C-alpha cells in the first residue's frame, strides 16, 4: 500500500497541458473540503509548485542542530531536498540538495560537518553558501577538452532557498515575493514561539513516522481541537485534556496558523459529554505506574497542553513537559513522513530531563496520546477511496467563521483557516 512515487511528477507536468480547473470548490466555502484534494496526483503536483515552492515559509531545522561553522543538516521543502548550512562566519544558508551540474544529491548524510560540499559524481565543489568554487578538469587535460571559454562558475551555484531564523527556528522559502517571516506568522504565533523558545534548547532525539495518508490530513489533525479529547481516550480518561478545562484556540494570518491550548488545573468536573458515556472516557482503568503523568508546571500561563500548527507543514507542541517540533514531509498524495524533534532546555535539571523522557511515552509513534493519530489519517484515506465526485468533508463546528475563540475549543475554525490558506495559494 506504499504506492505513489515522490518526484514522479514535477510541477511542470501540471503547467504544460494543465487541466483547468483542477476542481470546483464547493460554493459554501471552507466549511467543506472536497476529498479529491487528498488523492489526486495532479492536485498534489500543483501543491508542490504553488504551496511549497510558493510564498510560504517552511520550517527547516533548529539552529541548535547546526551549532558550529561548517555544520549542516538536510531537510525537505515539500518533496525538494534541501541543505541547511552554517558558514565560517556563522551565517545560515539553505540551498537545494541538487548539484548544479547534472543533478546529483550532494549530501546523503542527515547532518555533519563540511568545509565544502563536493558532489560525488564529477566533483564539482561548492562553498557553504552554495556557490560553485571548483570544477574538476575545467581546463581540460594537457590543453585538451575542459569547459569552453566563457564558462562562468557564478552561473552554476546551487539553487538558493531564502532563510530567516526566528528564536532559533530556521524557516525557508523559494519565493522572492514572500512576506517577511514575522508578518507571515503574525503576532499570536510569534508570542507562542517566543514562549517556548525563550531560552536555549537541547535536542533529546528524533522520531520518524510514516503515515499512509495525504500530508494535509495530518496537518488538519494537528490543529483539530474537536478530535483531541474524543479520539485520544488517554487525554479524557486520565484528564490530561478535556474541553471542560479552560482553554481556547488562537488563529493568525487569516487562520493559516493556529494554536490550541488548555490548562490542566482548571478542569471542571462534570459538564461536557465526558460523563455521558462517550467512548473517550474508559471506566475502571488506572495506571499501575502513575508517575508517567506527574508533571511540572513549567510555564506561568498555566497552559499544560498547547499545539501550534503553522501553515503549511510544521507543528510546535507542548504536552505536559514534552516539547517537540513535528514536520510533515509529503511523499506522494497518499503518504507522508512525520519528523519529530524532541527537545528540552539546556538548563534542565536532571530530574526535569528525566520527567521529559518518561513523558515521552505520551508522544511519538508509540505515544499513549499520539498513537491514535498515526492511523486515523489512514482511516480517512481508506474511507474516501472511490468517493463520488462531489463528496466533501464537513467543518461547521463553531460556525462558519475563521476567528480566535479564547474561551472555547468546541470549534473547527482552525480547519477552516487551513483551507482558507490552501485555497488562496492553490487558486481554488
Amino acid at each position: 500500500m506504499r504506492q505513489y512515487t515522490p518526484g514522479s511528477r514535477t510541477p511542470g507536468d501540471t503547467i504544460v497541458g494543465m487541466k483547468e480547473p483542477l476542481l470546483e470548490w464547493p460554493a459554501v466555502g471552507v466549511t467543506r473540503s472536497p476529498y479529491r484534494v487528498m488523492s489526486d496526483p495532479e492536485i498534489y503536483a500543483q501543491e508542490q509548485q504553488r504551496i511549497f515552492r510558493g510564498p510560504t515559509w517552511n520550517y527547516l531545522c533548529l539552529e541548535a542542530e547546526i551549532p558550529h561553522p561548517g555544520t549542516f543538516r538536510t531537510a525537505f521543502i515539500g518533496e525538494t531536498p534541501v541543505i541547511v548550512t552554517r558558514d565560517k562566519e556563522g551565517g545560515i544558508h539553505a540551498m537545494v540538495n541538487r548539484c548544479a551540474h547534472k543533478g546529483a544529491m550532494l549530501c546523503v548524510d542527515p547532518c555533519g560537518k563540511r568545509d565544502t560540499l563536493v558532489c560525488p559524481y564529477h566533483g564539482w565543489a561548492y562553498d557553504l553558501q552554495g556557490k560553485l568554487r571548483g570544477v574538476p578538469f575545467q581546463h581540460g587535460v594537457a590543453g585538451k577538452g575542459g569547459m569552453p571559454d566563457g564558462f562562468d562558475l557564478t552561473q552554476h551555484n546551487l539553487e538558493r532557498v531564502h532563510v530567516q531564523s526566528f528564536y532559533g527556528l530556521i524557516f525557508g522559502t523559494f519565493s522572492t515575493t514572500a512576506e517577511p517571516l514575522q508578518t507571515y506568522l503574525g503576532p499570536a504565533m510569534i508570542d507562542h514561539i517566543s514562549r517556548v523558545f525563550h531560552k536555549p534548547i537541547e535536542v533529546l532525539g528524533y522520531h520518524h513516522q510514516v503515515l499512509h495518508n495525504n500530508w494535509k490530513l495530518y496537518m488538519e489533525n494537528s490543529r483539530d481541537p474537536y478530535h483531541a479529547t474524543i479520539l485520544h481516550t488517554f487525554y479524557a480518561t486520565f484528564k490530561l485534556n478535556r474541553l471542560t478545562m479552560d482553554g481556547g484556540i488562537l488563529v493568525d494570518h487569516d487562520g493559516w496558523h493556529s494554536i490550541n491550548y488548555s490548562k490542566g488545573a482548571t478542569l471542571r468536573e462534570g459538564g461536557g459529554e465526558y460523563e455521558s458515556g462517550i467512548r473517550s472516557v474508559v471506566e475502571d482503568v488506572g495506571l499501575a505506574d502513575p508517575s508517567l503523568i506527574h508533571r511540572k508546571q513549567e510555564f506561568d500561563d498555566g497552559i499544560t497542553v498547547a499545539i501550534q500548527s503553522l501553515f503549511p507543514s510544521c507543528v510546535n507542541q507542548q504536552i505536559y513537559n514534552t516539547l517537540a517540533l513535528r514536520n510533515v514531509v509529503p511523499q506522494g498524495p497518499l503518504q507522508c513522513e512525520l519528523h519529530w524533534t524532541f527537545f528540552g532546555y539546556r538548563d534542565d535539571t536532571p530530574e526535569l530531563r528525566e520527567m521529559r523522557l518518561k513523558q515521552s511515552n505520551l508522544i511519538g509513534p508509540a505515544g499513549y496520546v499520539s498513537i491514535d493519530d498515526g492511523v486515523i489519517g489512514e482511516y480517512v484515506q481508506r474511507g474516501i477511496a472511490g468517493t463520488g465526485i462531489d463528496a466533501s468533508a464537513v467543518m461547521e463546528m463553531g460556525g462558519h467563521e475563521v476567528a480566535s475563540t479564547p474561551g472555547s475549543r468546541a470549534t473547527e475554525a482552525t480547519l477552516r483557516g487551513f483551507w482558507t490558506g490552501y485555497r488562496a495559494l492553490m487558486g481554488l
Partner: protein
Amino acid sequence: MIDEIVRRQIEDLHTRYIRAIDDDRLEHWPALFTEQCVYKIMTRENYDRGLPLAVMDCRSRGMLEDRVTGLRKINVFEPQRYLHQICGLSIDGIEDGAVRCRSNYLVVRTMAEGAMSIFSAGIYLDRIVLEPSGPRFEERIVIADSRRIDTLLVIPL
C-alpha cells in the same frame, strides 16, 4: 563460561517472550521482567548519536502493565499481529549478578486484512537475572535498525 543449562534457560525465556507477544497473550509479558526493570525501544539513529529519546521507555514492571492497558483499552489502531524471528544469542558475561546477552530479532507485522511487512529488525541487548523461579529480564534494550516506524507502534517488539 556459562554452561549449557543456563543457556537453555535463557533460550526458553526468549521463547516465552516471543510467544506472549506473537500469541497476543500480552498479559503474560510483564511477568517475564523483574519488578524494577528497564524496557526500552530505541532507534539506531538516537542510540548511536547518544540521544536519550526512546520510542517506548518503561522503567518499571508497572509501566509494562500500563502498556498492555493502553493497547487493550485506550488506544485506537488497526488490528495487527507480530511474528518474531530471533537468532544469534550470545552470552557475553556476568555483571553484578546478571547475565548480559544479546540476539538478533526480526518482526513481521500482519494487518487484519492481510498486509504483511517487515516492521522492525535489530538487536536485543539484555540483562537477565537467574531467580530461583527462573530467569527474568532485568533490562531489555531493543535497538531497531530503522529510524522509521510505519504508522504506529503499539505492541512491544
